[in-house]
C-alpha cells in the first residue's frame, strides 16, 4: 500500500489546523409544538382502590374557589419524545467538558472530575431528607465537618458555613454577619458604609447595597493596583467593612492588602476577603496572613464542582472565632465520634439558605480536595498561574491587543485584556470577536458591565488545560483577529457554525414584544386570545 504523509492535511508548519467545528443544529421546536393530545411521558402511582374507597371524593373538600377549573395546559408527550427533545437541546449547549473553556474568565472553569459526580449522585446522599435525625446522617455530617477543616486550613480562618447558595449569597451572608457584629457593639446605625474596589466582583457592591449599606467604590491607581490613598479618603467611623477581591478580576494581586486591612481595622471596620479568584493562590497566601476577619470561596470555581448552567452551588463563608457565633444555623459540631447539627445559636444571623446548602457539592468539593492534598492544591495554583502567564505572553503576540494596568508585570490566574486598538482600527468589537470564537467551539467572555477596561476580554485558563489547549485558543483568536482586519463582515455576521444565527434583540427590550413564556409569545406575537392574564 502506498505510503503518505498522514499529517499533511491536518497540520501546517507542524501546528494543527484550526478545528472545522460545527455545533449540533436540530432546529428543535419549542416543546409545546410537539404536543400530541393524550400522550403520556410518565404514569404516576395509582391510589389503591380500597384506600380511595375509604376516603371518598377528596376533591369535594376543596371550596370551589380553590379548585382548579381546567388542567394546566402543559404539552402532552410520550417519554420517547421528551427524551429526544432534551437530548437534542443538550447537544446544542457547549459544556466545559467539550471545549477549551478558558474564555469565561473569572468563572474558573476547571475539570469537574466524573468520580465526584458519581459519588454525589449516590442514593446514600440523594435519598437523605434534610430534617432526618442526626444519627441517620453521620456520613454526610462527617464529610461536611471534614471539608470545613480543609477550608479552615486553606484560609487560616476558624469556622465555616456551607449554607449560602453561591458566591453572591456568601457575600450577602458575610454582610449579614458584619451587621450583626456592629449591632452587638451598638454601632450598627453609625457604621453604614461598605467599601469595595471597582475590580472586585460586582456582587460585593450589589450585596452590600441590597443589605442597605452605602457602597464606596475605590478606583485603582495609575498602575492598576487598588489605591491606598483612595482607601484613606474612604475610611471613617462610618466604615462597617471592606469587601475586597484579591487577586482582583484583572489578575493583579494587591501587594498592600495587609495595609488595607490594617487601615480598616484601625477605623473599627471588618475586612472580608472575596476568594472568588483563589485558584491561583492556594497554599501560597491566605486570609489569615493578611489578617482578614471573613472570607468566602466558591466551590464551583476553586473546588471543581460543576457550574451546572448556573447552579446549584455553594458559597462557603468563613470567619474568625470572634464572629463564629453569628454564622447561619445550623453548623456541624463534632462530639467525639458523633456529629450533630447545632441550631441553638442565639446570636446567629439565622437562615441564609434552605437547610444545609447543597451537600452534593460539598461531597464533590471534599472529594476533589482529598484527591489533591496540600501538594496537589499548590500544584493547582502554580499551574493555573503558569498557564495564565503563558497565555498572556502568547495573547500579546496578537496585534491590536493589550493587557491594561501593571504593564509588563506577571499576573495571577486571569487577565482582563483590551481590544481597544483593534476596535479603533477595524470597528470590530470585543463581543463580536467572542461570537465569532463560538464558531470554533470556544467560549469567550468580555467582562462584567459596565466595561471599565475598554473592549475587554477576560481569560482564565486554570490548571485544567494543556499547553496545546492554550495554543489552540490563541490560534483561534489570532485567526478571528485576522478576519477582523481582512474580512470584518465575516466576524460581524457571526455566528456561522453555531446552532442559531444572529438574534433580533429589539423584542427583548420592548414590553409590547418581549415574551418570557410561550403563552406570552403566542399572545403577543401570535395574536392569540387567552383566558386569564
Amino acid at each position, binding site marked *: 500500500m502506498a505510503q503518505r504523509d498522514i499529517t499533511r492535511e491536518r497540520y501546517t508548519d507542524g501546528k494543527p489546523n484550526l478545528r472545522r467545528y460545527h455545533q449540533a443544529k436540530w432546529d428543535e421546536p419549542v416543546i409545546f409544538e410537539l404536543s400530541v393530545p393524550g400522550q403520556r411521558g410518565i404514569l404516576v402511582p395509582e391510589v389503591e382502590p380500597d384506600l380511595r374507597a375509604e376516603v371518598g371524593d*377528596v376533591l369535594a373538600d376543596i371550596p370551589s374557589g380553590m379548585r382548579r377549573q381546567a388542567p394546566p395546559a402543559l404539552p402532552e408527550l410520550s417519554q420517547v419524545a421528551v427524551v429526544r427533545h432534551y437530548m437534542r437541546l443538550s447537544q446544542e449547549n457547549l459544556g466545559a467538558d467539550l471545549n477549551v473553556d478558558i474564555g469565561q474568565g473569572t468563572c474558573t472553569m476547571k475539570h469537574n472530575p466524573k468520580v465526584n459526580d458519581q459519588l454525589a449522585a449516590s442514593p446514600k446522599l440523594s435519598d437523605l431528607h434534610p430534617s432526618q435525625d442526626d444519627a441517620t446522617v453521620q456520613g454526610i455530617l462527617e464529610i461536611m465537618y471534614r471539608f470545613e477543616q480543609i477550608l479552615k486550613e486553606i484560609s487560616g480562618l476558624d469556622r465555616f458555613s456551607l449554607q449560602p447558595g453561591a458566591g453572591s449569597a456568601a457575600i450577602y451572608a458575610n454582610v449579614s454577619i458584619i451587621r450583626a457584629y456592629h449591632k452587638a457593639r451598638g454601632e450598627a446605625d453609625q457604621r453604614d458604609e461598605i467599601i469595595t474596589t471597582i475590580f472586585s466582583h460586582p456582587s460585593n457592591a450589589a450585596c452590600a447595597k441590597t443589605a442597605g449599606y452605602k457602597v464606596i467604590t475605590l478606583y485603582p491607581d495609575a498602575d492598576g493596583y487598588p489605591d491606598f490613598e483612595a482607601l484613606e479618603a474612604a475610611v471613617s467611623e462610618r466604615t462597617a467593612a471592606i469587601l475586597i477581591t484579591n487577586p482582583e478580576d484583572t489578575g493583579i494581586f494587591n501587594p498592600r492588602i495587609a495595609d488595607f486591612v490594617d487601615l480598616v481595622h484601625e477605623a473599627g471596620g471588618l475586612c472580608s476577603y472575596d476568594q472568588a479568584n483563589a485558584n491561583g493562590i492556594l497554599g501560597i497566601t491566605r486570609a489569615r496572613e493578611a489578617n482578614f476577619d471573613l472570607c468566602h470561596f466558591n466551590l464551583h470555581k476553586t473546588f471543581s464542582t460543576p457550574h451546572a*448552567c448556573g447552579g446549584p452551588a455553594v458559597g462557603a463563608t468563613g470567619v474568625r472565632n470572634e464572629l463564629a457565633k453569628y454564622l447561619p444555623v445550623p453548623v456541624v459540631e463534632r462530639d467525639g465520634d458523633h456529629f450533630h447539627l447545632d441550631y441553638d445559636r442565639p446570636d446567629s444571623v439565622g437562615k441564609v439558605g434552605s437547610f444545609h446548602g447543597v451537600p452534593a457539592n460539598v461531597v464533590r468539593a471534599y472529594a476533589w480536595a482529598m484527591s489533591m*492534598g496540600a501538594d496537589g492544591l499548590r500544584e493547582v495554583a502554580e499551574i493555573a498561574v503558569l498557564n495564565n502567564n503563558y497565555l498572556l505572553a502568547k495573547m500579546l503576540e496578537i496585534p491590536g491587543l493589550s493587557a491594561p494596568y501593571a504593564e509588563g508585570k506577571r499576573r495571577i490566574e486571569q487577565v482582563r485584556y483590551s481590544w481597544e486598538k483593534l476596535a479603533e482600527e477595524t470597528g470590530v468589537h470585543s463581543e463580536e470577536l467572542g461570537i465569532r470564537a463560538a464558531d470554533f467551539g470556544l467560549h469567550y467572555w468580555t467582562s462584567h458591565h459596565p466595561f471599565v477596561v475598554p473592549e475587554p476580554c477576560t481569560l482564565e485558563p486554570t490548571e485544567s488545560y494543556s499547553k496545546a489547549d492554550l495554543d489552540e485558543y490563541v490560534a483561534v483568536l489570532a485567526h478571528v483577529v485576522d478576519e477582523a482586519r481582512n474580512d470584518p463582515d465575516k466576524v460581524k455576521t457571526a455566528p456561522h457554525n453555531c446552532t442559531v444565527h444572529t438574534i433580533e434583540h429589539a423584542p427583548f427590550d420592548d414590553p409590547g414584544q418581549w415574551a418570557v413564556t410561550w403563552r406570552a409569545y403566542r399572545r403577543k406575537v401570535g395574536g392569540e386570545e387567552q383566558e386569564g392574564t
Partner: protein
Amino acid sequence: MSERKPVVYPYIPNSVPEVKEQMLREVGASSTEEFYEDVPEALRVKGRMNLPEPLLSERALRRHVEGLLAKNSTAGENLSFLGGGCYQHHVPAVCDEINSRSEFLTAYAGEPYDDHGRFQVLFEYASMMGELLNMDVVNVPTYDGLQAAATSIRMACRLTGRQQALVARNLGWEKLSKIRDYCKPDIEIRPIGYEADSGGLDLDELDAVISPHTAAVYFDNPTYLGSIEVNGARIAEIAHAHDAVCVVGADPLSLGILTPPVEYGADIVCGDIQPLGMHTQFGGGQAGYIATRDEEAYVMEFPSRLFGIAPTKVPGEYGFGDVAYERTSFAVREEGKEWVGTAAALWGITAAVYLALMGPQGMVDISEGIMTRARYAMARLGEIPGVRVPLAAAPHFKEFFVNFDDTGKSVAEINQGLLRQQIFGGADLSKQFAELGQSALYCVTEVHTKADIDHLVDAIGKEVA
C-alpha cells in the same frame, strides 16, 4: 518539612515536569515563584498546608468517600414522612438522565449562540411553569423557595415604595428567618396570626394591621402546617384595598388540583420547585421560582434573569436572550436591585423535563393522589387513642400536623421510637410552634402506599400505647 512528591496529576495536564519547564522557558521565568512577586513574604503560607494525605488513585478516593456515605441511613432505606419544605417525591429516571448530561452539567454562562440549548430549556421551563401558574412571567430559578419569598417581598416594596410586609405567622421558621435577614434593615416584617381551627390567616388581625404603609401581604398556600388557605381571594382583596401587593407562596405540585393563586388575586407567586424532579439530597435540590403578570412595572423589579424568545435572521429559527437586560427599578433608592448570579439553573432544566413528562393529566393525577393519601393518613392517625389531627376538618394537600399531647409523650420520644422501627416520623414542631404543643408535621406523597401509611399508624400506635 517533607519534600513535594513528584506527581503527575490526571486533572492537571501541565503537571508533567518537562512541559512545565518548557512553558516557563517560553515566558522567560525561572520558576513559578516569579509569578507571585506581588505577594509579600509576610503574607506567604509558611511551609506546607496541614491537610490530610491525598488519595491519589480514583479507587482509593471512592473507597474513602463511599465509606463515609455508607454511614448514612436514607429515607429510601427507611419509611419517611418528613416534609417541611423538602419533599420525597418520585424522581422520573429521565430527569436524572438529562440533568447529568455533561453538556448541561458542566456548562455555565455562555451566549445564546453557543449555549442555545440552555436558553431554550430554561425558556421552556418558564413556559410550563407559566401554564401551571397561569402567569406570563417566570424567572430563571433563584437559590430556593426561601430566597424567592424574600425577593418577592423586596420586589413588592420597590413596586409600592413602602417598607412593611405582613406575613402569615404560620410560615416555616426557616422561611421567616430568611425573610427577616434578607429584608434588613429597611423593611419591617410583621407576622399575622392564624386561626386555630382552620389554619388560615386571621383576617381580623390582617384588617386591623394593614395600612397605607403596607407593601405586601404574604402567605403560603398550602400553608407550612399543611392546610389549604381557602380565603385567598379575601386576603388579596384586603391587600388590594390598601394598594398593597399580594404575594403567595405555592407548592407547584399542588396546582394540578388547586386554583393558581393569580386567579384569586395574587400579584406575585413564588415557591420552591424541588418537588418537580429533584431528589431530596439532604436539602440540596431546592430552587426558587417567582412569577408575575406580564406588566412592565413588575418585570422591571425582577433581580433574576428572564429568558425571552425572539426571531433570528433565519426565518423560522428561534433565538433566545435576556429580557429587559438593563432592568431599571422604578424605585430610585434601590437601583442595585439585589443581584443575579449562580443559583439553581440545573434544577430549572430538571423541572422542565419533569413537567414535560407529567403533562396535564400527570399533574392532575399526582395532585389528586397525594391529597387522597394525605386525607387517608389524617383519618387513620386520628383514630389512634391520644393522637389528634387538630385541623382534620380543613382541606389539606400533602402535609398536616399531628398532636400527641394526650399521649403523655413528646414528639422527640415518639420519633426516637419510630426510628427504632425504621420510620422517620414527622418533623417536631414543638419548638417553632410552641402553641401547638407536642405536634409533628407529617408529609404523605405519591411514594407512599396504603401499606406504608397503615404501617405508620401501627407503629405510632405501639409507641403511644
